């Protein structure tokens, strides 16, 4: 236990109560939707969820809404989301790690300028680029007969590009902490930069890469806009389907509720199992504005 903790721990009871109240407020909205997703449709229409919470053993529970949701297209969307997310996590990291290597260990003209440009680009809203990119893809489709929009590939490309500034920035920050002597020694031994990168720098950068991968994974998994524009209805991801469902909640909250939690399962598993790395990553500055 560290010293600041020790200093504070004298006044713990009031703080515990305050925190309990805070956590209750923080969790109530999520809990409400979770409980609703687990109740029979006819019951949820006439009795609020906190009544089920008050009598957890006598109220009926069911997975009906989850079965409906999965049968109603959520299974396909789960597959689509995975197919968009996994490459859109791996590809940008590979490309960014290469670039970060160049920015850290190699010398070239305009290095400072390009790096400043990247930092500035972290602030630019992605909306400012999306329409021209969409139009460009449609143009390629018409001219070369290569299908891009409505496929996973377009989402991979766009997600990779938007991840570049922050990914290069955080990976470079990490690579700067690696011992330069090691790389110099390898150069003297006659290793090419290509070998140095793949055999030395990349393995040594695993912690930074892993922590950024978690963020990129959550970001892409949770993204709506890029999936809506570039993948769309054809291979609807979960956020896309969920938003359509939310537009029709007049038909009962169960399906939206169940759909929400199906879309949340994997991010929540990632969150709770890798929380330590997430915290570490946040402290290293990997948060997307």
């Amino acid at each position, binding site marked *: 236990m560290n010293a600041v903790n020790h200093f504070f721990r004298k006044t713990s009871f009031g703080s515990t109560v305050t925190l309990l109240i805070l956590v209750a407020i923080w969790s109530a909205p999520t809990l409400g939707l979770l409980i609703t997703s687990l109740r029979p449709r006819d019951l949820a229409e*006439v009795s609020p969820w906190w009544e089920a919470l008050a009598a957890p053993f006598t109220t009926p529970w069911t997975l009906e809404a989850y079965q409906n949701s999965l049968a109603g297209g959520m299974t396909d969307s789960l597959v689509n989301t995975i*197919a968009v997310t996994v490459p859109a996590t791996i590809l940008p990291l590979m490309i960014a790690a290469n*670039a970060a290597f160049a920015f850290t260990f190699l010398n070239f003209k305009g290095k400072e300028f390009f790096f400043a440009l990247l930092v500035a680009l972290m602030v630019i809203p992605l909306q400012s*680029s999306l329409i021209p990119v969409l139009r460009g893809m449609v143009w390629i489709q018409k001219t070369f007969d290569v299908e891009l929009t409505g496929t996973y590939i377009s989402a991979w490309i766009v997600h990779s590009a938007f991840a570049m500034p922050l990914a290069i920035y955080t990976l470079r920050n990490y690579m700067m902490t690696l011992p330069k002597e090691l790389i110099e020694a390898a150069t003297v031994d006659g290793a090419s930069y290509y070998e140095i990168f793949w055999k030395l720098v990349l393995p040594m950068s695993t912690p930074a890469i892993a922590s950024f991968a978690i963020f990129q994974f959550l970001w892409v998994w949770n993204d709506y806009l890029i999936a809506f524009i570039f993948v769309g209805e054809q291979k609807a991801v979960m956020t896309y389907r969920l938003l359509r469902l939310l537009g029709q909640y007049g038909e009962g909250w169960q399906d939206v509720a169940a759909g929400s939690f199906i879309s949340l399962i994997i991010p929540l598993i990632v969150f709770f199992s890798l929380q330590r790395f997430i*915290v570490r990553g946040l402290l290293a500055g990997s948060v997307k504005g």
Partner: protein
Amino acid sequence: MSDLFFGLVSIVVGVAASYGVFWLLNFLLSLLPERLYRKANWLAFLLPAALLVIIVLVAPLVQTVIWSFKSDNAKEWVGTQNYVEIFTDEVKPDKVEAKKEEGAVFFADNRILDGRFMNILLNNFLWVLVVPAATVVVGTATATLSNQVGPTRERVFKSLIFMPMAISFVAASTIWAYFYSYVPPGRPEVGLLNALFKLLGGEAQPWLTLDKGRLNSFLLMIVIIWLQGGYAMVVISAAIKNVPTETLEAAQLDGANSWQVFFRVILPQVWGTVMSVFVTILIMVMKIFDIVLAMTRGNFTTSVLAFEWYKEFFENSNLGPASAVVTILVVLIAPLMWLQIRTVRQQEALR
């Protein structure tokens, strides 16, 4: 199943292909004479990233700015017309006199400020004013509180408050839309907010449609504060734990109470961290979009710039005006670029 198979194959092919690109680049460069190879080697590492950034980020940004001065089909130049139409409204000839009597400010003969767009700018301004500050306050408060309980409790509390970080804007909107939900009188309440409001003697309200005093916009802001509070807490908490104990003990010896210790000793030492969280959330909030789309579709005076861009292009197919709206957003965000570069420079200097 074929979808699943196709998905798996495309994942493997995609990743292998991009590895192949780097291998190929290096191979091609290695055909050069040794001296040149050493000099041009950085290209093999940087080229894919540079192309991606230029083709998908920089060039389209320039294109958007150009389109903002063109007509809807991007065929003719229209000068500043898109901007004029965004900022101002045309007044019908027979209404001009009446508007003049009301004291409306006229631009040219028949144009006055567009009230709707002014509302959008006001909304963006309110988001920027409220959310970063509120999130930082929530983060600092929870960080401080969680420091005052045992380590196990601290871990559990922090996890639960941090958890929304993993939730998408769309799913968060679902969760909160249900919390704010309204059922017509006569049917049982399912929304917690209305139930609580009734308990206090009020009548059920369709909260998200109430734009008086921008109430509904504030309700949307709560969702972002809920999503980002944990991030602020985690980062600020780490900074608080790094405060040297000597300073705390010295303050205590001098007879400072815990409030004084917090405001005079701890807060000044973590101020840099608090500000960096503030700026990060500020940048995010300027671009706020998904929450507005999912919860109100920009209705009931909740629209913001990024949503207006979406609506102009994807609902009204107005390329020119959509580009102009997003250009305005970029111009408003540009000063933050400078702030960002400055923060990075400071961090570099500390290294």
